Protein backbone atom coordinates (compact mmCIF):
# COMPACT_ATOMS: atom_id res chain seq x y z
CA UNK A 1 0.00 0.00 0.00
CA UNK A 2 2.67 2.47 1.00
CA UNK A 3 4.48 2.01 -2.28
CA UNK A 4 1.25 2.54 -4.19
CA UNK A 5 0.38 5.80 -2.49
CA UNK A 6 3.94 7.07 -2.76
CA UNK A 7 3.95 6.58 -6.49
CA UNK A 8 0.45 8.02 -6.70
CA UNK A 9 1.62 11.20 -5.00
CA UNK A 10 4.68 11.58 -7.19
CA UNK A 11 3.44 10.95 -10.66
CA UNK A 12 6.61 12.54 -11.97
CA UNK A 13 8.48 9.91 -9.98
CA UNK A 14 12.16 10.03 -9.24
CA UNK A 15 15.10 8.14 -10.56
CA UNK A 16 15.46 6.01 -7.46
CA UNK A 17 11.98 4.55 -7.73
CA UNK A 18 12.41 3.80 -11.40
CA UNK A 19 15.66 2.00 -10.75
CA UNK A 20 14.16 0.03 -7.87
CA UNK A 21 11.11 -0.96 -9.93
CA UNK A 22 13.14 -2.05 -12.94
CA UNK A 23 15.65 -3.93 -10.79
CA UNK A 24 12.96 -5.82 -8.88
CA UNK A 25 11.10 -6.73 -12.06
CA UNK A 26 14.39 -7.91 -13.51
CA UNK A 27 15.01 -10.03 -10.42
CA UNK A 28 11.54 -11.60 -10.55
CA UNK A 29 12.00 -12.39 -14.24
CA UNK A 30 15.47 -13.84 -13.73
CA UNK A 31 14.18 -16.02 -10.91
CA UNK A 32 11.32 -17.35 -13.07
CA UNK A 33 13.65 -18.12 -15.96
CA UNK A 34 16.18 -19.95 -13.79
CA UNK A 35 13.41 -21.94 -12.14
CA UNK A 36 11.97 -23.09 -15.47
CA UNK A 37 15.40 -23.81 -16.91
CA UNK A 38 16.24 -26.05 -13.96
CA UNK A 39 12.85 -27.72 -14.09
CA UNK A 40 12.86 -28.56 -17.78
CA UNK A 41 16.58 -29.19 -18.30
CA UNK A 42 16.59 -32.98 -17.92
CA UNK A 43 13.47 -33.48 -20.07
CA UNK A 44 14.88 -31.26 -22.81
CA UNK A 45 18.18 -33.15 -22.76
CA UNK A 46 16.30 -36.44 -23.02
CA UNK A 47 14.19 -35.13 -25.93
CA UNK A 48 17.28 -33.86 -27.70
CA UNK A 49 19.00 -37.22 -27.33
CA UNK A 50 15.94 -38.94 -28.80
CA UNK A 51 15.79 -36.46 -31.67
CA UNK A 52 19.49 -37.05 -32.33
CA UNK A 53 18.96 -40.81 -32.37
CA UNK A 54 16.15 -40.40 -34.93
CA UNK A 55 18.32 -38.07 -36.99
CA UNK A 56 21.14 -40.64 -37.11
CA UNK A 57 18.73 -43.11 -38.71
CA UNK A 58 17.90 -40.44 -41.29
CA UNK A 59 21.45 -39.51 -42.27
CA UNK A 60 22.68 -43.09 -42.59
CA UNK A 61 20.01 -44.90 -44.62
CA UNK A 62 19.31 -48.58 -44.06
CA UNK A 63 20.65 -48.99 -40.53
CA UNK A 64 19.02 -50.83 -37.66
CA UNK A 65 21.19 -49.75 -34.74
CA UNK A 66 23.63 -47.05 -33.70
CA UNK A 67 26.54 -46.77 -31.33
CA UNK A 68 28.23 -43.68 -29.90
CA UNK A 69 31.99 -43.26 -30.01
CA UNK A 70 33.95 -40.62 -28.17
CA UNK A 71 37.01 -38.92 -29.59
CA UNK A 72 40.05 -39.36 -27.39
CA UNK A 73 43.07 -37.15 -26.87
CA UNK A 74 45.33 -39.58 -28.74
CA UNK A 75 43.22 -39.11 -31.90
CA UNK A 76 41.43 -42.43 -31.63
CA UNK A 77 37.78 -43.31 -31.14
CA UNK A 78 36.37 -45.56 -28.45
CA UNK A 79 32.83 -46.72 -27.69
CA UNK A 80 31.06 -44.74 -24.99
CA UNK A 81 27.77 -44.59 -23.14
CA UNK A 82 28.42 -41.23 -21.56
CA UNK A 83 25.78 -38.52 -21.87
CA UNK A 84 28.26 -35.77 -21.13
CA UNK A 85 27.63 -33.03 -23.67
CA UNK A 86 31.24 -31.84 -23.43
CA UNK A 87 32.69 -35.00 -24.95
CA UNK A 88 33.07 -34.84 -28.72
CA UNK A 89 31.21 -37.82 -30.11
CA UNK A 90 30.44 -39.43 -33.44
CA UNK A 91 27.82 -42.09 -34.06
CA UNK A 92 28.28 -45.24 -36.07
CA UNK A 93 25.31 -46.87 -37.80
CA UNK A 94 25.05 -50.61 -38.51
CA UNK A 95 22.62 -52.67 -40.56
CA UNK A 96 20.90 -55.81 -39.28
CA UNK A 97 24.01 -57.93 -39.98
CA UNK A 98 26.25 -55.59 -37.94
CA UNK A 99 27.90 -54.19 -41.05
CA UNK A 100 29.13 -50.62 -40.67
CA UNK A 101 27.03 -48.40 -42.97
CA UNK A 102 28.33 -44.99 -42.01
CA UNK A 103 29.34 -42.50 -39.36
CA UNK A 104 27.08 -39.63 -38.29
CA UNK A 105 28.93 -36.45 -37.37
CA UNK A 106 27.48 -33.39 -35.72
CA UNK A 107 28.61 -29.97 -36.93
CA UNK A 108 27.62 -26.42 -36.29
CA UNK A 109 28.40 -22.93 -37.45
CA UNK A 110 26.88 -19.56 -38.06
CA UNK A 111 23.76 -19.46 -40.21
CA UNK A 112 21.98 -16.32 -41.35
CA UNK A 113 20.93 -15.41 -37.85
CA UNK A 114 21.80 -17.86 -35.17
CA UNK A 115 23.82 -21.03 -34.94
CA UNK A 116 22.93 -23.82 -37.34
CA UNK A 117 23.35 -27.26 -35.85
CA UNK A 118 23.44 -30.08 -38.38
CA UNK A 119 24.16 -33.80 -38.57
CA UNK A 120 25.59 -35.56 -41.60
CA UNK A 121 26.29 -39.16 -42.47
CA UNK A 122 29.70 -40.15 -43.85
CA UNK A 123 30.30 -43.45 -45.60
CA UNK A 124 34.02 -44.28 -45.18
CA UNK A 125 33.92 -47.13 -47.73
CA UNK A 126 32.74 -44.94 -50.59
CA UNK A 127 34.19 -41.73 -49.08
CA UNK A 128 30.94 -39.88 -49.56
CA UNK A 129 28.46 -37.92 -47.50
CA UNK A 130 25.24 -39.90 -47.66
CA UNK A 131 22.78 -37.88 -45.61
CA UNK A 132 22.16 -34.52 -44.01
CA UNK A 133 19.75 -33.33 -41.34
CA UNK A 134 19.18 -29.97 -39.66
CA UNK A 135 19.05 -30.50 -35.90
CA UNK A 136 18.59 -26.91 -34.86
CA UNK A 137 17.98 -23.81 -36.91
CA UNK A 138 16.49 -20.39 -36.40
CA UNK A 139 16.73 -19.49 -40.08
CA UNK A 140 14.07 -17.25 -41.61
CA UNK A 141 10.89 -19.29 -42.00
CA UNK A 142 9.95 -19.70 -45.65
CA UNK A 143 13.40 -18.64 -46.87
CA UNK A 144 16.36 -19.95 -44.89
CA UNK A 145 14.49 -23.01 -43.69
CA UNK A 146 14.31 -24.23 -47.28
CA UNK A 147 17.55 -26.06 -46.46
CA UNK A 148 15.27 -28.62 -44.81
CA UNK A 149 13.32 -29.24 -48.02
CA UNK A 150 13.79 -32.41 -49.99
CA UNK A 151 15.05 -30.62 -53.09
CA UNK A 152 18.01 -29.31 -51.11
CA UNK A 153 18.47 -32.59 -49.24
CA UNK A 154 19.03 -34.29 -52.60
CA UNK A 155 22.49 -32.67 -52.58
CA UNK A 156 23.53 -35.04 -49.84
CA UNK A 157 22.55 -38.37 -51.31
CA UNK A 158 26.13 -38.83 -52.53
CA UNK A 159 28.23 -35.76 -51.87
CA UNK A 160 31.88 -36.37 -52.58
CA UNK A 161 34.15 -36.13 -49.54
CA UNK A 162 37.10 -38.14 -50.91
CA UNK A 163 40.52 -37.86 -49.31
CA UNK A 164 43.79 -37.26 -51.13
CA UNK A 165 46.16 -40.11 -51.86
CA UNK A 166 47.78 -40.31 -48.43
CA UNK A 167 44.38 -39.97 -46.68
CA UNK A 168 45.32 -36.90 -44.65
CA UNK A 169 43.31 -34.19 -46.35
CA UNK A 170 40.03 -33.73 -48.21
CA UNK A 171 40.78 -33.72 -51.93
CA UNK A 172 38.09 -31.26 -52.95
CA UNK A 173 36.70 -28.85 -50.40
CA UNK A 174 32.89 -28.89 -50.24
CA UNK A 175 31.45 -25.63 -51.54
CA UNK A 176 28.03 -24.23 -52.27
CA UNK A 177 27.48 -22.99 -55.81
CA UNK A 178 24.65 -20.96 -57.29
CA UNK A 179 21.41 -22.82 -57.90
CA UNK A 180 21.67 -24.95 -61.03
CA UNK A 181 25.45 -24.43 -61.39
CA UNK A 182 26.49 -27.69 -59.76
CA UNK A 183 28.99 -29.51 -62.01
CA UNK A 184 31.06 -31.57 -59.59
CA UNK A 185 30.17 -34.19 -57.00
CA UNK A 186 31.64 -32.15 -54.14
CA UNK A 187 29.50 -29.09 -54.85
CA UNK A 188 26.23 -28.23 -53.14
CA UNK A 189 23.51 -26.78 -55.32
CA UNK A 190 22.51 -23.57 -53.52
CA UNK A 191 19.08 -22.03 -53.11
CA UNK A 192 18.23 -18.77 -54.83
CA UNK A 193 16.83 -16.43 -52.17
CA UNK A 194 18.49 -18.33 -49.37
CA UNK A 195 22.05 -17.73 -50.53
CA UNK A 196 23.50 -17.06 -47.09
CA UNK A 197 21.91 -20.05 -45.40
CA UNK A 198 22.79 -22.49 -48.18
CA UNK A 199 26.35 -21.15 -48.25
CA UNK A 200 26.50 -21.52 -44.48
CA UNK A 201 25.64 -25.21 -44.88
CA UNK A 202 28.53 -25.54 -47.35
CA UNK A 203 30.93 -23.79 -44.99
CA UNK A 204 29.86 -25.83 -41.98
CA UNK A 205 30.26 -29.10 -43.90
CA UNK A 206 33.54 -28.01 -45.41
CA UNK A 207 35.03 -27.10 -42.04
CA UNK A 208 33.70 -30.21 -40.35
CA UNK A 209 34.77 -32.66 -43.07
CA UNK A 210 38.27 -31.15 -43.19
CA UNK A 211 38.65 -31.90 -39.51
CA UNK A 212 36.73 -35.13 -39.00
CA UNK A 213 36.80 -37.12 -42.22
CA UNK A 214 40.57 -37.81 -42.17
CA UNK A 215 40.34 -38.82 -38.49
CA UNK A 216 37.32 -41.06 -39.00
CA UNK A 217 38.85 -42.64 -42.10
CA UNK A 218 42.15 -43.32 -40.34
CA UNK A 219 40.30 -44.99 -37.48
CA UNK A 220 37.63 -46.67 -39.53
CA UNK A 221 38.55 -50.12 -38.22
CA UNK A 222 37.74 -49.09 -34.65
CA UNK A 223 34.08 -48.65 -35.64
CA UNK A 224 33.70 -52.23 -36.85
CA UNK A 225 31.83 -54.52 -34.54
CA UNK A 226 34.07 -57.39 -33.60
CA UNK A 227 32.11 -60.61 -34.07
CA UNK A 228 34.34 -62.51 -31.63
CA UNK A 229 33.32 -60.30 -28.78
CA UNK A 230 29.80 -61.71 -28.67
Amino acid at each position, binding site marked *: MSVQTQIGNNIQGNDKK*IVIAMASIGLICAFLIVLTYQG*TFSTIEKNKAEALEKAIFKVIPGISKTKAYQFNQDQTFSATNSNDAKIQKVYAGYDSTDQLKGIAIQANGKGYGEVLNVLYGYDPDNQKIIGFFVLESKETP*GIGDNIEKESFMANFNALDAALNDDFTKIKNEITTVKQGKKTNDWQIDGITGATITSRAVGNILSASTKLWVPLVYKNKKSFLINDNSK
Partner: protein
Amino acid sequence: MSLISHKKSEKGFFNSIADHPSTDEFIKGVWRENPVFVQVLGMCPSLAVSNSAINALAMGLATAFVLLMSNILISLLRDFIPKQVRIASYILIIATFVTLTDYTIQAISIDLHKSLGAFIALIVVNCIILSRAEAFASKNSVGKSILDALGMGLGFTFALLCIGGLREVLGSGSFFGYEFMPYFFEKWVIMVLPAGGFFTLAFLLLIFNSYKMKNSKA
Protein backbone atom coordinates in the same frame (compact mmCIF):
# COMPACT_ATOMS: atom_id res chain seq x y z
CA MET B 1 -3.33 9.61 -16.17
CA SER B 2 -3.38 5.87 -16.17
CA LEU B 3 -1.97 5.76 -12.66
CA ILE B 4 -4.83 7.80 -11.24
CA SER B 5 -7.45 5.62 -12.78
CA HIS B 6 -5.99 2.63 -10.94
CA LYS B 7 -7.52 3.80 -7.71
CA LYS B 8 -10.97 2.82 -8.88
CA SER B 9 -10.04 -0.82 -9.01
CA GLU B 10 -8.58 -1.29 -5.55
CA LYS B 11 -11.08 -3.94 -4.60
CA GLY B 12 -10.28 -7.53 -3.84
CA PHE B 13 -9.70 -10.04 -6.54
CA PHE B 14 -12.90 -12.02 -6.02
CA ASN B 15 -15.10 -9.01 -5.46
CA SER B 16 -14.12 -7.60 -8.78
CA ILE B 17 -15.07 -10.81 -10.56
CA ALA B 18 -18.50 -10.81 -8.96
CA ASP B 19 -19.07 -7.07 -9.48
CA HIS B 20 -18.48 -6.90 -13.17
CA PRO B 21 -20.29 -8.30 -16.14
CA SER B 22 -17.27 -10.56 -16.32
CA THR B 23 -18.51 -12.79 -19.06
CA ASP B 24 -18.38 -9.76 -21.33
CA GLU B 25 -14.64 -9.24 -20.66
CA PHE B 26 -14.19 -12.80 -21.80
CA ILE B 27 -16.52 -12.89 -24.79
CA LYS B 28 -15.33 -9.60 -26.28
CA GLY B 29 -11.88 -11.03 -27.06
CA VAL B 30 -13.25 -14.17 -28.61
CA TRP B 31 -15.77 -12.48 -30.85
CA ARG B 32 -16.62 -8.76 -30.79
CA GLU B 33 -13.01 -7.56 -30.52
CA ASN B 34 -11.29 -10.63 -31.92
CA PRO B 35 -7.58 -9.72 -32.11
CA VAL B 36 -7.10 -11.08 -35.64
CA PHE B 37 -10.44 -10.66 -37.39
CA VAL B 38 -11.48 -7.33 -35.86
CA GLN B 39 -8.39 -5.61 -34.47
CA VAL B 40 -6.15 -7.07 -37.21
CA LEU B 41 -3.23 -7.35 -34.76
CA GLY B 42 -0.49 -9.96 -34.64
CA MET B 43 -0.50 -10.53 -38.38
CA CYS B 44 3.00 -11.95 -38.58
CA PRO B 45 2.35 -15.23 -36.73
CA SER B 46 -1.23 -15.40 -38.07
CA LEU B 47 0.07 -15.52 -41.62
CA ALA B 48 3.35 -17.31 -41.11
CA VAL B 49 2.69 -20.23 -38.76
CA SER B 50 -0.81 -21.03 -39.97
CA ASN B 51 0.16 -23.47 -42.73
CA SER B 52 -1.16 -26.41 -40.73
CA ALA B 53 -3.74 -26.81 -38.00
CA ILE B 54 -1.32 -28.22 -35.44
CA ASN B 55 1.17 -25.36 -35.88
CA ALA B 56 -1.66 -22.84 -35.63
CA LEU B 57 -3.01 -24.46 -32.47
CA ALA B 58 0.41 -24.64 -30.81
CA MET B 59 1.23 -21.05 -31.71
CA GLY B 60 -2.20 -19.87 -30.52
CA LEU B 61 -1.90 -21.66 -27.20
CA ALA B 62 1.68 -20.49 -26.66
CA THR B 63 0.65 -16.90 -27.31
CA ALA B 64 -2.43 -17.26 -25.09
CA PHE B 65 -0.26 -18.59 -22.27
CA VAL B 66 2.19 -15.69 -22.53
CA LEU B 67 -0.73 -13.27 -22.74
CA LEU B 68 -2.38 -14.73 -19.65
CA MET B 69 0.74 -14.84 -17.51
CA SER B 70 1.99 -11.41 -18.50
CA ASN B 71 -1.46 -9.89 -17.97
CA ILE B 72 -1.58 -11.37 -14.46
CA LEU B 73 1.89 -10.15 -13.50
CA ILE B 74 1.44 -6.71 -15.06
CA SER B 75 -1.92 -6.27 -13.38
CA LEU B 76 -0.42 -7.28 -10.03
CA LEU B 77 2.46 -4.85 -10.44
CA ARG B 78 0.45 -2.08 -12.07
CA ASP B 79 0.73 0.33 -9.13
CA PHE B 80 4.37 -0.47 -8.62
CA ILE B 81 5.62 0.12 -12.17
CA PRO B 82 6.48 3.80 -12.74
CA LYS B 83 4.77 5.28 -15.77
CA GLN B 84 8.05 6.32 -17.39
CA VAL B 85 9.39 2.79 -17.65
CA ARG B 86 6.18 0.88 -18.13
CA ILE B 87 6.81 -0.25 -21.72
CA ALA B 88 10.30 -1.47 -20.83
CA SER B 89 8.87 -3.34 -17.83
CA TYR B 90 6.11 -4.91 -19.92
CA ILE B 91 8.57 -6.10 -22.55
CA LEU B 92 10.80 -7.55 -19.84
CA ILE B 93 7.87 -9.45 -18.32
CA ILE B 94 6.60 -10.63 -21.70
CA ALA B 95 10.08 -11.76 -22.77
CA THR B 96 10.40 -13.75 -19.54
CA PHE B 97 7.21 -15.68 -20.18
CA VAL B 98 8.20 -16.27 -23.79
CA THR B 99 11.45 -17.80 -22.55
CA LEU B 100 9.50 -20.02 -20.17
CA THR B 101 7.21 -21.07 -23.03
CA ASP B 102 10.22 -21.81 -25.20
CA TYR B 103 11.69 -24.17 -22.58
CA THR B 104 8.31 -25.79 -21.97
CA ILE B 105 7.67 -26.48 -25.65
CA GLN B 106 11.17 -27.97 -25.96
CA ALA B 107 10.33 -30.22 -23.02
CA ILE B 108 7.03 -31.27 -24.63
CA SER B 109 8.29 -31.94 -28.15
CA ILE B 110 11.46 -31.06 -30.01
CA ASP B 111 9.69 -31.58 -33.34
CA LEU B 112 7.00 -29.06 -32.45
CA HIS B 113 9.66 -26.63 -31.28
CA LYS B 114 11.45 -27.06 -34.59
CA SER B 115 8.35 -26.50 -36.70
CA LEU B 116 7.47 -23.31 -34.81
CA GLY B 117 11.09 -22.26 -35.29
CA ALA B 118 11.89 -18.61 -34.81
CA PHE B 119 8.27 -17.70 -34.16
CA ILE B 120 8.27 -18.61 -30.49
CA ALA B 121 10.90 -15.96 -29.81
CA LEU B 122 8.88 -13.52 -31.89
CA ILE B 123 5.90 -13.78 -29.49
CA VAL B 124 7.78 -11.08 -27.57
CA VAL B 125 6.99 -8.54 -30.25
CA ASN B 126 3.44 -9.74 -30.88
CA CYS B 127 1.48 -6.51 -30.60
CA ILE B 128 -1.59 -8.27 -29.16
CA ILE B 129 0.26 -8.97 -25.93
CA LEU B 130 1.76 -5.51 -25.53
CA SER B 131 -1.53 -3.87 -26.46
CA ARG B 132 -3.45 -5.88 -23.84
CA ALA B 133 -0.80 -5.02 -21.24
CA GLU B 134 -0.94 -1.29 -22.03
CA ALA B 135 -4.66 -0.97 -22.75
CA PHE B 136 -6.08 -3.37 -20.20
CA ALA B 137 -3.91 -5.11 -17.61
CA SER B 138 -2.19 -1.90 -16.52
CA LYS B 139 -5.56 -0.33 -15.69
CA ASN B 140 -7.66 -3.22 -14.40
CA SER B 141 -7.81 -5.71 -11.56
CA VAL B 142 -6.17 -9.12 -11.74
CA GLY B 143 -9.51 -10.88 -12.13
CA LYS B 144 -10.58 -8.80 -15.08
CA SER B 145 -7.12 -9.05 -16.65
CA ILE B 146 -7.29 -12.84 -16.44
CA LEU B 147 -10.66 -12.87 -18.19
CA ASP B 148 -9.45 -10.41 -20.79
CA ALA B 149 -6.33 -12.50 -21.46
CA LEU B 150 -8.32 -15.73 -21.66
CA GLY B 151 -10.78 -14.16 -24.10
CA MET B 152 -8.13 -12.56 -26.28
CA GLY B 153 -5.93 -15.66 -26.16
CA LEU B 154 -8.82 -17.91 -27.11
CA GLY B 155 -9.88 -15.48 -29.82
CA PHE B 156 -6.37 -15.48 -31.26
CA THR B 157 -6.15 -19.29 -31.10
CA PHE B 158 -9.57 -19.58 -32.73
CA ALA B 159 -8.58 -17.23 -35.54
CA LEU B 160 -5.28 -19.03 -36.12
CA LEU B 161 -7.06 -22.39 -36.13
CA CYS B 162 -9.56 -21.11 -38.74
CA ILE B 163 -6.73 -19.95 -41.01
CA GLY B 164 -4.53 -22.98 -40.30
CA GLY B 165 -7.36 -25.47 -40.69
CA LEU B 166 -8.55 -24.04 -43.99
CA ARG B 167 -5.00 -23.88 -45.36
CA GLU B 168 -4.22 -27.42 -44.33
CA VAL B 169 -7.45 -28.87 -45.71
CA LEU B 170 -7.05 -27.20 -49.09
CA GLY B 171 -3.27 -27.21 -49.29
CA SER B 172 -2.41 -30.65 -47.90
CA GLY B 173 -5.78 -32.43 -48.06
CA SER B 174 -5.63 -33.21 -44.35
CA PHE B 175 -6.70 -31.89 -40.96
CA PHE B 176 -4.36 -32.23 -37.95
CA GLY B 177 -2.28 -34.53 -40.13
CA TYR B 178 -5.22 -36.86 -40.78
CA GLU B 179 -5.72 -37.26 -44.54
CA PHE B 180 -9.36 -37.51 -45.45
CA MET B 181 -9.72 -35.99 -48.90
CA PRO B 182 -10.67 -38.40 -51.72
CA TYR B 183 -7.82 -39.58 -53.93
CA PHE B 184 -8.87 -37.40 -56.90
CA PHE B 185 -8.53 -34.23 -54.80
CA GLU B 186 -5.82 -32.03 -56.27
CA LYS B 187 -3.90 -30.27 -53.46
CA TRP B 188 -3.86 -26.47 -53.72
CA VAL B 189 -0.14 -26.11 -53.05
CA ILE B 190 -0.41 -22.32 -52.99
CA MET B 191 -2.44 -22.56 -49.77
CA VAL B 192 0.53 -23.81 -47.74
CA LEU B 193 2.84 -21.22 -49.32
CA PRO B 194 2.97 -17.68 -47.89
CA ALA B 195 0.56 -16.34 -50.53
CA GLY B 196 -2.09 -18.81 -49.34
CA GLY B 197 -1.97 -17.20 -45.89
CA PHE B 198 -2.92 -13.83 -47.35
CA PHE B 199 -5.71 -15.33 -49.46
CA THR B 200 -7.16 -17.22 -46.51
CA LEU B 201 -6.98 -14.25 -44.17
CA ALA B 202 -8.62 -11.98 -46.75
CA PHE B 203 -11.34 -14.55 -47.35
CA LEU B 204 -12.09 -14.95 -43.65
CA LEU B 205 -12.06 -11.17 -43.06
CA LEU B 206 -14.53 -10.83 -45.92
CA ILE B 207 -16.90 -13.34 -44.32
CA PHE B 208 -16.44 -11.84 -40.86
CA ASN B 209 -17.08 -8.28 -41.97
CA SER B 210 -20.01 -9.04 -44.23
CA TYR B 211 -21.61 -10.93 -41.35
CA LYS B 212 -21.02 -7.98 -39.04
CA MET B 213 -22.44 -5.47 -41.55
CA LYS B 214 -25.55 -7.57 -42.01
CA ASN B 215 -26.06 -7.74 -38.26
CA SER B 216 -25.58 -4.03 -37.69
CA LYS B 217 -28.12 -3.15 -40.36
CA ALA B 218 -30.77 -5.41 -38.90
